[in-house]
Structures are given as C-alpha cells and as structure tokens.
C-alpha cells in the first residue's frame, strides 16, 4: 500500500471516527456530570486536537512492503505504547491527570480496549477461516469427484 492510500484509508478514516466519538463523548459526559458548564468557541478545537493526537501513532503501522506476522506484532506493540504515551502526556499537560494511580488505571484501560478490539477481530477472522475451510474442502471434493 502506498503512503497516499494508507493516509486516506487508514489515517483519515481513523481521524474522523475519533473526531465523532470524542465529540459525542464530550457532549454526553458533559450533559451528565457538568450540565451547567459553558464553553467558548475554542472548545470546538479539542476534538480536532485529541483526534489528531490519537491518530498520529498509527503512522508507525505504515509499510510499503507486506509486513510479516512478527513485524506486525512489533508495530502493533509500538502503536499501543505510543498511543498510551500520547494520551497520558496530553492529559497530564492539560491538568486532567493528577495522580499516579489514575495514570496507571487509564493506561491499563487503554491496554484492555486495545486487546479487546484485537481479540474481537481475531474471533471474526477465525469464523471466516472456518467457513472458508469448509467451503474449500467442498470445492476440492467436487473437483476430485468431477461433479
């Protein structure tokens, strides 16, 4: 995959999904916990900033060549570590991260989300592989029998 395709398909897609989710989460959490708080126009910038920061670590996943499974695992681990660093650092810089236990619990939460997402994708792929293998055997039987 060339960089342009990677940028449009992966980075931009991820950015816009993050943007939508952050905006929705801000609105929902704000209405639930701080319904009286009012913001200026600058508040519209925060989803863009956090969306960009959350998306940028994806750049480590780019490769012009097809990555081996080992390389993919390495890149995914690097992506997770960068994502943790970016999120924790930015929250610390804006003053939302106030204690070490809070940082640890947030870090563990990010790790759990990442593992869960990959696990769900793996289960989906396993199901696809199972279906595929059954159909493949049928196809090979039909071919061998000349049906």
């Amino acid at each position, binding site marked *: *995959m060339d960089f342009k395709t990677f940028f449009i398909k992966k980075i931009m897609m991820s950015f816009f999904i993050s943007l939508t989710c952050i905006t929705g989460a801000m609105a929902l959490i704000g209405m639930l916990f701080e319904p009286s708080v009012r913001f200026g126009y600058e508040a519209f910038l925060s989803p863009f900033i956090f969306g960009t920061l959350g998306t940028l670590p994806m750049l480590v996943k780019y490769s012009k060549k*097809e*990555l*081996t*499974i080992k390389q*993919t*695992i390495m890149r*995914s681990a690097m992506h997770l570590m960068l994502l943790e660093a970016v999120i924790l650092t930015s929250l610390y810089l804006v003053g939302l991260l106030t204690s070490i236990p809070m940082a640890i619990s947030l870090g563990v939460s990010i790790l759990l989300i990442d593992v869960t997402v*990959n696990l769900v*994708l*793996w289960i989906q*792929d*396993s199901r*696809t*592989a199972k*279906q*595929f*293998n059954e*159909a*493949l055997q049928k*196809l*090979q039987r039909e*071919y061998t029998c*000349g049906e």
Partner: protein
Amino acid sequence: MHVQIRNIKDKARERLIIECVEVTSDIESIRAYALTKGTTLSGSCEERIYQFNLADVSYFEAFGEHVYAYTKSRHYKLNVRLYMLESTYADHHFIRCSKSFVINLMKLESISPALNGRFTAHMKSGEKILISRQYVPALKRVVLEGVGNGL
C-alpha cells in the same frame, strides 16, 4: 468402454463426464489425463528445461525479475509474468493471494487468521503463504460463493 462425443457451442461448458460402476485406477488415469491435458508448463531448474503439469503446481511466486512455479519436489523458473499466469489459469483454480503469490486452491490445505485482517494459507506441501488483506475478499468470493475465477 463406450465413448461418446457431443458437440456443444459454449467453450466454457466443455466437460468430460465419465460414467462408471467403480472408480478404478484406469478411470483415475483418464481423469488425471483429462485434467492436465493442454495445461503443461515448461520451466528451468538447475540449468535444465522441464515440462510439468499445471495441476502439480502448488503456487507461483514472483521474486525479483523472475516467476517461479513450486511443485512438491521442485521449483521451476518461468519466463512469464505473474499477472499473466493469474489471468490464464484463473479457471484452473489459481488465484492471487498477495502481490507476489498466486496459489492453487486445489493444493491449499486451509487458512488461518494472521493479524490485521490477513490470513495465512497453509499449503498441502507444508508451506505457509501470507494472504494480503486486499486479496481476501476475492478469495472469499471464489471459495465461499463460487463466483469469479471461472469456477
């Protein structure tokens, strides 16, 4: 054995049907002959030119400037481009699974998930080939739905 030849108009529907009481070794050899007839390839291996059956090929690999055909016992260097093999032998169950590989579905044992929406093709010969994410939909269409690839 009674032999009957019937003319049809559609080339794609050409077929050989063997009606027999029992599948004997003779029948098997007729079937093997019919399957590989007209689909032999020639390639070089250790400075010598060989002819081999397409049906024996597990997969084709483009490596550097050359394309190689891998059978159970040998690999042959071919003087063709990978995309040509892909299009020519699509109706012989050969399908592209990555930028550099075209695999024979009849020599494919199974697939298993790899990471990032990719899969690993486990060939009957024991080799493992990575199926790129972009070729997964076409492969699924051919095997699961039996569409495309002339099947």
